[in-house]
């Protein structure tokens, strides 16, 4: 199973954490991105994620390769949802196991930072007033 993937189906964190397990791993840090009910002062009702799948896949895999080079970790994985999500849904999951917790925290943080910066996935927020807006990385709608 690829260490980075885009998924149309709900993410199962328990299964993903199991895949990070290793007898020499003493620490596991995970990040979950959940769909919030508000952004930039507006009430959000649901999200759509659109992805340019082939490039998202290869860029995501680059990021996973980078953390293995930069940090003393054991395993790393990231799964990002595509499609329509409701408030509270799990949109992105990152997990890193390592012998020690410092590297696991650093690598987990690095992955989500870079995914948000570099991986071609876009969020369309649907608001209470039935408008919607595509967001860019500083979370301001693009008009």
């Amino acid at each position, binding site marked *: 199973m690829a260490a980075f993937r885009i998924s149309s189906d709900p993410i199962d964190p328990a299964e993903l954490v199991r895949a990070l397990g290793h007898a020499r791993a003493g620490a596991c840090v995970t990040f979950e991105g959940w769909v919030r009910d508000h952004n930039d002062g507006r009430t959000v009702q649901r999200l759509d994620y659109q992805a*340019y799948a082939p490039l998202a896949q290869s860029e995501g895999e680059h990021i996973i390769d980078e953390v293995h080079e930069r940090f003393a970790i054991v395993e790393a994985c990231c799964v990002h949802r595509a499609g329509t999500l409701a408030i509270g849904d799990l949109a992105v999951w990152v997990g890193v196991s390592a012998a020690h917790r410092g590297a696991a925290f650093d690598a987990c943080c690095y992955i989500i930072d870079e995914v948000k910066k570099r991986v071609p996935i876009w969020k369309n927020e649907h608001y209470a007033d039935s408008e919607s807006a595509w967001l860019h990385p500083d979370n301001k709608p693009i008009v």
Partner: protein
Amino acid sequence: MKYRVLYFASLRDRADTDAEQIESLATDARSLYSELRARHGFTMDEDRLRVAINGTFAQWTQTLREGDEVVLIPPVSGG
């Protein structure tokens, strides 16, 4: 030359299509984007976009070849 262009997010909404075949005299990504701006009324400057050619991030100055797939990448917002 003929190119295949893919659109995402706000560019897709503005172009009202996810992909199209373009017959163009442009020979690099930058001049192709200028044409597409005029054609679809895109408001984003080129420096806010990235471009991918045949599935890989590329420079705006990259020379295009017949049949290339050109993808305009607006600022991403995953996560």
